[in-house]
């Protein structure tokens, strides 16, 4: 295990858990569509993307457990923490809403992660870089798929355009948190593991501007950003999500497949 020497384990563990929680929670949200999608191809696509995200989360949790060195594994992190210990950004926990909400959330998250994974793949931590190297390509598929839906709905019928515009308005306050900087992101950047998220803002803006212009969508007005997820403060939706996610492990502690 090649942990960059210049970083303390607690900081790296926190950073890995933030990334892992983003991917687990968004993967869980997508999995809620399984069996409910509007058409068969989407019923395949959303669980497929969920598998990618949960697979990335598993690799990150396993590595976080190694770095932390206190014997916690992926199931402990995924199922046996309390709400305030989850460090995901708020966007990924927002309810699925309609198909427009789900696809816009997916598109925004992938448009953020794709350039960030690219940078992390070139970073100084070999394990994280290897996880990133595959995630870059997987997130590219997510951008394309979700982006196509943003365009199709935004530039679709009056009804679909109204719904996509509604999703933009509802989710816009959660974009800013993706790019937040604090002592953890700063230390990680100084160790050369991952640049500050803000450094990929221009790449994100370019991807979003391109898809929104094809979708005939207005870019959202600047709004007061919502935050707190990185410190474990969540929206009211999170408790319900965790109730379902954790149900089996809470009911049958230590259950394995």
């Amino acid at each position: 295990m090649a942990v960059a020497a210049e970083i303390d384990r607690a900081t790296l563990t926190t950073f890995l858990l933030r990334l892992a929680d983003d991917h687990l929670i968004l993967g869980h949200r997508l999995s809620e569509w399984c069996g409910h999608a509007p058409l068969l191809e989407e019923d395949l696509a959303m669980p497929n993307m969920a598998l990618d995200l949960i697979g990335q989360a598993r690799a990150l949790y396993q590595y976080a457990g190694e770095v932390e060195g206190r014997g916690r594994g992926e199931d402990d992190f995924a199922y046996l923490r309390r709400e305030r210990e989850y460090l995901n950004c708020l966007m990924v926990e927002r309810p699925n809403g309609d198909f427009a909400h789900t696809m816009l959330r997916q598109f925004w998250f992938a448009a953020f992660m794709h350039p960030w994974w690219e940078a992390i793949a070139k970073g100084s931590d070999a394990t994280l870089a290897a996880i990133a190297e595959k995630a870059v390509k997987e997130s590219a598929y997510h951008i394309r798929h979700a982006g196509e839906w943003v365009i199709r709905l935004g530039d679709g019928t009056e009804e679909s355009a109204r719904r996509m515009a509604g999703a933009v308005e509802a989710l816009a306050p959660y974009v800013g948190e993706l790019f937040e900087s604090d002592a953890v992101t700063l230390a990680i950047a100084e160790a050369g593991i991952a640049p500050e998220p803000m450094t990929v803002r221009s790449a994100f803006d370019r991807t979003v501007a391109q898809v929104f212009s094809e979708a005939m969508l207005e870019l959202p007005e600047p709004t007061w950003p919502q935050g707190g997820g990185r410190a474990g403060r969540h929206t009211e939706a999170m408790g319900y999500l965790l109730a379902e996610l954790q149900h089996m492990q809470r009911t049958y502690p230590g259950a394995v497949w």
Partner: protein
Amino acid sequence: MVSGLHTRGQDRRDSNVRRDGRALSRRAYAAAASVPDPEIPVLTVADLGILRSVEIEDGVAVARLTPTYSGCPATLAIELAVEAALREAGFEPRIERVLSPAWTTDWITEGGRAKLAAYGIAPPQRASNSVRALFGEVQVACPKCGSGETERISEFGSTPCKALYRCTACREPFDYFKCL
């Protein structure tokens, strides 16, 4: 004199041990390499390029495997199958998961590509790091009739590694093994 003989004998024993060690490693590799992928059983772990090495270390056969797609549910099944195959062949197995360098579809062997096509799955395009290949702006040949007149039906197919295509020449639907 005596010590010289001793040395030669020692050398011979050492080289026998080394040769036996290499032969054992090769036998262990062969046992592990023949394990099929549970979802695409025409491919072995060696065809997929995910079996990095098998070496005998302190009497234990250590197989190093690289996962494919991050979300591939077969990863654990493959590890268990390789472990069972080594045990079957008389080895005490240990599986190590190696993440770096990350697997790409470019590691699928030529033989593996031919097997995929014969099985009815269009093999992945080369140069997985090219954006064109990733984004599917390439011609995927129909594995049934060979025509390049194909269209993508769905980005995501029956497993995380596949997309659904249709041949507009012979009208057959088929799976395409996506680039990664």
